[in-house]
């Protein structure tokens, strides 16, 4: 590319030339530079295009996961059905199973049909009630068990519409596909349209997507990221609490205190190699050590956190050592020269200057850990978990999911509604990563000092 090898100009007095005309060599050099710039712009163009396509596809497909179709109904909490003995005792009410609540919803549909004068030929309230997610009865039952005194009243509920109905309003399900689908009929879709016109059915923002637990195969509309978010948060906590102090202490020791000999060289090389070990290897290690040997529970954030800590440590150590190295040695001599001990020198002068780099490295390491999937699959974080883990520290030992694993999990399921949710989970994951990177930048700006 460069013209170093063509400088063999003939010796002798230089010919007199005008600066107003470019000579051949200058022209050639300028052309080469122009070409190089073009390559650069092209490379950046391709990178930006790839990024935009990726983000756009995720956003377009996933943003609908944050909106959900709801059907609002007034339910008469019929004492004849819920409290047959009329005792009002909670044990008796609890005996009524989820199935026992289905008639209440059918009843409500009947009322709607009469009041708003809608309905589709040949549709019974029973088939109409299928518009509502199976989650609906469960929701009713939970409410009644929490508020038994309201039996006999009429209460307004926002029910989740079934996955197919929701898909209809998001364009995933059409009349034609409903013909072939055993889960939904075109008549039900017609009814849904009518309900929408009557204002009973609405599509609105769905916080439950972020707070609900995962749901079973046949009710994607109820599935949420709550357990996965908490699981990921717990793991990040474990990683931060373990990897930051261990990593920083190790780096400070290696960089500032350790004698420079063969042993420290070996350690150095190994840390660099550790950073390049495929993450799944850490998963196998975690399975063997933390679960099989130490007997920690499977699917628990503590194990996930420990595995991710092992994985993040080299990243943090390398970043910390680099930022310690970048502190000018004159600062160290200055402190040592007025009688500060080695430790005082490091903690009063070197560490504060290295802090922005350490924090950035740590957060980037955490971000990497947050998105890590493979090792978590091996330690059982892929299990279906419906119960929220408890508060830490005990909660760290309860089963939980993790965000990236939840994405993987949902893409494996049959119902296409889960694909939408997986994309929504990716958006959530990206938002978390974006927040972490922003924090890293802000910290960097805040702590950065010139010297």
């Amino acid at each position: 590319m460069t013209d170093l090898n063509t400088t063999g100009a003939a010796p002798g007095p230089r010919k007199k030339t005008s600066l107003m005309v470019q000579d051949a060599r200058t022209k050639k050099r300028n052309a080469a530079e122009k070409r190089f710039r073009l390559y650069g712009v092209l490379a950046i163009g391709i990178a930006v295009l790839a990024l935009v396509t990726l983000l756009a596809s995720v956003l377009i497909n996933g943003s609908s996961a944050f909106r959900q179709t709801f059907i609002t109904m007034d339910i008469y909490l019929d004492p004849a059905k819920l409290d047959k003995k009329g005792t009002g005792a909670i044990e008796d009410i609890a005996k009524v199973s989820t199935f026992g609540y289905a008639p209440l919803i059918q009843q409500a549909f009947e009322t709607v049909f009469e009041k708003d004068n809608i309905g589709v030929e040949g549709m019974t309230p029973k088939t109409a009630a299928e518009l509502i997610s199976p989650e609906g009865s469960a929701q009713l039952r939970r409410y009644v068990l929490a508020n038994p005194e309201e039996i006999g009243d009429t209460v307004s509920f926002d029910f989740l519409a079934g996955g197919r109905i929701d898909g209809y309003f998001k364009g995933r399900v059409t009349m034609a596909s409903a013909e072939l689908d055993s889960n939904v009929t075109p008549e039900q879709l017609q009814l849904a349209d009518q309900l929408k016109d009557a204002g009973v059915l609405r599509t609105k923002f769905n916080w439950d997507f972020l707070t609900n637990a995962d749901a079973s195969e046949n009710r994607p509309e109820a599935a949420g990221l709550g357990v996965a978010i908490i699981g990921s948060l717990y793991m990040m906590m474990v990683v931060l609490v373990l990897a930051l102090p261990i990593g920083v202490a190790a780096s400070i020791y290696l960089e500032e205190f350790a004698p420079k000999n063969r042993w420290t060289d070996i350690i150095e090389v190994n840390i660099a190699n550790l950073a390049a070990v495929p993450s799944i290897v850490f998963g196998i290690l975690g399975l063997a050590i933390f679960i099989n040997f130490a007997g920690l529970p499977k699917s628990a954030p503590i194990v996930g956190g420990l595995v991710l800590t092992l994985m993040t440590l080299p990243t943090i150590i390398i970043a910390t050592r680099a930022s310690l190295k970048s502190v000018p040695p004159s600062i160290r001599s200055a402190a040592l020269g007025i009688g500060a001990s080695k430790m005082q020198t490091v903690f009063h002068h070197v560490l504060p200057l290295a802090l922005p780099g350490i924090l950035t490295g740590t957060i980037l390491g955490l971000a990497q850990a947050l998105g890590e999937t493979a090792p978590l699959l091996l330690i059982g974080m892929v299990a279906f978990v419906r119960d929220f883990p408890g508060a830490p520290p005990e909660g760290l030992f309860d089963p939980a999911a993790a965000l990236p694993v939840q994405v993987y999990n949902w893409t494996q399921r049959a119902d296409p509604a889960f694909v939408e949710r997986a994309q929504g989970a990716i958006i959530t994951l990206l938002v978390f990563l974006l927040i972490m990177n922003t924090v890293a930048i802000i910290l960097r700006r805040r702590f950065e000092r010139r010297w």
Partner: protein
Amino acid sequence: MEDMYHMDRAMTGTQDIKISARDVNVYYGEKHAIKNVSVEIADKTVTAFIGPSGCGKSTFLRCINRMNDTIDIARVTGNILIDGEDITDPRVDPVQLRAKVGMVFQKPNPFPKSIYDNVAYGPKIHGMSRNKTDLDEIVERALRRGAIWEEVKDRLHEPGTGLSGGQQQRLCIARAVATEPEVLLMDEPCSALDPIATAQVEELIDELRQNYSVVIVTHSMQQAARVSQKTAFFHLGDMVEYGETDKIFTNPEDPRTESYISGRIG
């Protein structure tokens, strides 16, 4: 003023010995950087080290506060006595030693902290003040002795790195004297300074001589002649000649000293 100056000079001959180095050798790995140097440095005197670049002046200076300990490959043999105590003894904690032997470096190296914190740091870690007022006093005194108080008294809480090069160097001198050392080592303190700042620092060195033993490395013959009472000439790791400054500059014994001073080697 003039009279006092001459009186001081005349007195140097009768001064106590502050630092006494015996057969000091320094090796950087295989390289023999200081060869069998023995020298006696008097108290309340300015001693100048001169010599061509790379001859080992800084290396020898670093022996006196054991800063060579911080260089992995450096190895020092021989004895250096300060007030009769051997500082190369393993029982001596270099940290404690460096509180007693201050150092000013060739390149100004203030901490990236406020001017106040720069000066207060040493007294703080050595527990020299009981309260804030004490510390304020120490800082002011040090900055005055560093001949920089007037320039910075209104901006004590601005970063020390925001000062000009010459001001930074005087700040570093103030920082070094704030811990009340008994010996002050200065490695080319004026190499980054303009003539005005140099004059200020030289004046300061002359003042410091009242209380300290000052050892200064310099490349400027004029400076050595102006500020020092004793001069040592180093060449390729050897200390070739050591004696009264006047004598070294007017009537050197060794031909190497003569040719260096007259500008023929260097």
